[in-house]
């Protein structure tokens, strides 16, 4: 591995959409960064589209309700003070503010299994 790239710690796979990618850190502190704290325990890697080594990319984390590992894609999860996978959001939809409810309602027809 290139220096600074960080060793691959494993392969992150979203349990909903099966998106997978190797990840190089897990936690709230992306490596080589100062002043950045993540508000959840994340799977992340170096931002593959940036030439700078310390730029990071969060791939996903665990749903705070069901503990499923999900990616941060809008089809799979959302963050609202905590990470929720969409199935859990739907289950507790009434507890979410209206903005999110309408957002999800819009999404439904196009949603893939």
């Amino acid at each position, binding site marked *: *591995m*290139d220096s600074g*790239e960080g060793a691959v710690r494993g392969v992150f796979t979203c349990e909903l959409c099966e*998106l*997978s*990618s*190797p990840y190089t850190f897990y936690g709230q502190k992306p490596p080589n*960064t*100062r*002043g*950045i*704290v*993540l*508000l*959840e325990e*994340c799977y992340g*890697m170096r*931002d*593959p*589209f*940036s*030439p700078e*080594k*310390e*730029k990071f*990319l*969060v*791939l996903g984390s665990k749903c705070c*309700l069901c503990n499923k590992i999900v*990616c*941060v*894609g809008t089809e799979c999860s*959302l*963050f*609202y*003070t*905590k*990470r929720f996978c969409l199935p859990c959001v739907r*289950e*507790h939809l*009434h*507890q*979410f*503010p*209206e*903005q*999110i409810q309408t957002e999800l309602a819009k999404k439904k027809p196009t949603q893939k299994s």
Partner: protein
Amino acid sequence: MSGRRAEPRDWDWNSPRCRAELDHIFFRQHDYIRANSPEHAEFWTFFERFQRFRAKRELSGSSSSRGRAEPQDGKARNRSGTGGPDLGLPKEYDARYRISVSVCSRDVEDGFGSSGHRRSGGESSGPGREQVSECRLALLHFLDFAQKQSFSKVLKLRREQRNLPIFQYRERLVELVRRNPVVVVAGDTGCGKSTQAPQYLLGSGFSNIACTQPRRIACISLAKRVSFETLNQFGSKVGYQIRFETSRTPSTKLLFLTEGLLLRQIQQDAALSQYQVLIVDEVHERHLHCDFLLGVLRSLIARRPDLRLVLMSATINIKLFSGYFNHAPVLQVPGRLFPIQVIYQPIPPEEQVSKSEKLDPRPYLRVLQGIDQRYPAEERGDLLLFLSGVAEISTIMEACQTYATHTNRWIVLPLHSTLSLTQQDKVFDIAPPGVRKCIISTNIAETSVTIDGVRFVVDSGKVKEMSFDPKAKMQRLQEFWISRASSEQRKGRAGRTGPGVCYRLYAESDYEAFAPYPVPEIHRVALDSLVLQMKSMGLGDPLSFAFIDPPPTSSIQTAVTYLKEQGALEARGELTPIGTLLSQLPVDVVIGKMLVLGSLFSLVEPVLTIAAALSVQSPFLRSAQHNPDCSTARQPLNSDLGDPFTLLNTFNAWVQVKGERGGGSRKWCKRRGLEEQRLYEMANLRRQFKELLRSHGLLETEEPPAPSAQGRTERRERLTERSRLYQLKREHELQDGGRRKVLRLDEGQEEESCSGSDNEGSGSGKKDKNSMGRDVDIQEVKFKLRHNVTKLQEAAYVSADLSSRQLALLRLVLCRGLYPQLALPDEHNSTRKDSEQVFHTRNKQGVMIHPTSVFAIDPEVLHVSENETGEFGADRGESNRHQLLAFVTLLETNKPYVSSCVRVPALQALILVANSVDSNADCTRLVVDGWLELCVSDGEAALRALSSALKLRAEWERLLQAQLGHTGSGSTAGLGFSGPKPGRRELEKLAEGLVRFLVYNEVTYSLRRLTALQTQNLYIGPQLNPELSLPPLFPGMKAEPDPVKGGLRVTSYFTYNCLCDSKDLYSECLRTFWSCPHCDLHMPLTPLERMQHEATCRSAEEQQPEDDPTDDSPQAASTSALTRLYHCDLCNKDLTLTSTQILKHKRQHQP
């Protein structure tokens, strides 16, 4: 940005000062985003948008009672919700709750309110608490936005990967490779095999994977794509390696490289232990290297059971590959092509033309018209038209262009490898709405160049293909019907981006009659380099090598014979020291020879340039030839010595321009109609040659300059410059590809017409759109990174400033390198038109000079003009100025053409380089290589010339062998041949001798080609006369009766008195009195005895002891070499004598 909030009175978000103050809080040196970085600039742009957005929202939000008023509702509803745990979500919606990042900035570190405190301090009204939190909010949104952006790229990438047909076969492929040493993956265009298969293997734990490609450019673009797809764009896990460039590092796990390069690596390490998996892509293309590689790998697999081999092919002839590897399992993957409608439109007989005529454009125009009628202009889709060659392209282009101008619905663009790269690049640009591109291409667009957006394909069904005629030693570019496989490939070009149509300008029955596959390259080309490489890899007899599809035996035999003639193989077919060296050089044997020969004399710099220039495509654009401005601008570069010298001048002049004006060279090239890319390639190749020569000990290693204060400053400057250049290169690499520009309607019209012969060089000018950056002259940057321009300039000075003597020697070196590629001007050329000059080679009569050659423009320099012919022999064509052409290529298109020619003095060059020189008894008649006859009326002069040539050749050979023998370090020959390196004095003396021989020849002679009848009765044949077996004549050489030709074989190349017209077989009678100019010998001698005396009798000057300390060859050795043990049968004594002394001794016994 309105005053909706309480801002400090002098606070202005747009003021740089205010922003700078926030920068001190959020964008410090060690923060995630640093002030003055690109992201920092992006942030402030984002910030402005963000504020505008919020302002707008606030306006609409307050009027529509959303936003602040709402949460109460939400809260109420939350409460009324049924069951489930309380998630503890905030009651009021705020977009910031959706951001999962927090930032610790200076104000946080310092403790809240510090900034506010500072502000109350009075002097500076810095940002207030509100400004800080506003900026923080924007920053959080910015970071979130950046995350979303990157993540959606990953998502899109993964989706595309999953949609590829091969994705379904991922696990199966990995499983097959795990279980089998060889696997064949067969999949058609668009199935994703080239990009995905290596990734699947990499992802499932295989490492050290090499993937070969037939084209260099594919290595680069695949490495780029795969590293992007594996999210390793900025790492070096995935790399490429091509001839002059590599991105490989020790951490590279997947390497794309050319077939040729992998073969070179096998030459270094036969076990290829650095790789675990080898993927050979595009095996169906059947390139020479690929076929050979497969053969080598087949035997390697047996020796390395851990090695995995994956062959990837289109679904063509899969059985062949599977069968060759012991019925390896095949994984067949469907391609992803849209349906293509095939329309057969055979050309009606009245529109068909004979070979010599121009193509009739009507069938092609009909297709264009048909498209215009049938498909609305709004429906996009371009047309790709396949023709066989450049002349055909320009004919059809002309007609299509007229039609395009008339309709305004087409932009006509040519595509072939002799176009400039900028011209070629145009085919990737986009036509304006309502207009289609009509790309008229050679078969370069069949595999090498892929153009998206093609909906219509017109297939002429023809291709021009190179073949090799071993009898005439000539390449031939001929037109053929294509194969069914090619036909399908061309058709497929219409269905890459949507459903398409393919018009075939031949009948379905023609299609059925096509050969199933194209003829593999190994059956079409000269195998010299291949055989040489096989020899150096120790693969035994090339005839018994198990090729997948063995080339004709005669083809291999021709190559072996040729290599023997060239001195690369000895009689038993083993490599000679020079052969070993040549096998390491990635060039034609003749070019390799030039390099080796040039390194002997101090001609390295010009020879390096010439060898490089002759190994790349010509930098002179054909299209510019008819442009008078270009011709005028080129004029000073032309050399009447020959094309290699024009190339040398051009390169040198370019390097000077580079040194003086840097980027200005682009314009300089344009004015002269030069393709600068070729000059860059020459510079790279030149450097590679230099390194190769150095590593073989043929070139002194450069001494590092003594460290001086000045040197240090220079070095530092150079380092600074280099890091600046690296920065530029990096920036260029980050610019993702080039944006395609929109073509103008008149784009095609400025096209220069291209006429002349067609030459679609295989393996040249191959590229795809990824390679063509614009704007930054990245080539200039790379050039400066790779080369020390000052050094190159010095080298250019050296070779631009050659004396006429050095030039003479250089021509001889080129001639010896190119030998036996010689052409004789026809004797009647001076009475012919310039364009009708005729030449003859040994195996081919009546060849022409290629119109690009300097001798086509100025053939007079080759004529023997009237006043130059000797006073007495004018009518017999006698002169001392006869010349020959040494040429690089002989290619037959519509006529046989020689190109890249050098002129050399005939007699001198022939007796110095030819493999066979035969003479009559008094050496007034010489026959060279059995086809050229030289008649000298002055026997004395003939003898003098022959004798000194023999001496010079022997010395040249000796020094060359010494030089080669000295190359122990790099070569693996190990022939125990490690004499002393030739001394500088010796070499200078030899050079001096050669030049004198070349320049001051006063021998008048006639020169002609022998007729077939004359060649039949050329030799007297073996004689039974014991008198002829004279004692050995030259020290270390034996003159024996030649068993075939008759006469006496004096050296390996010179046979004396074997020509049929010999006046007397008993040459003793030819004794005439002669006095040696060097010693006091005066006696009647035969020509042979005289030569032999001259060879051993050194001039007084030469006999002086050599006290030059730089000369490391001991003088004792050279004198002792002259004497040898002689046993006289008559007096029965053993004597140690020189040859002259032996002669004298023998004379004693005669009555």
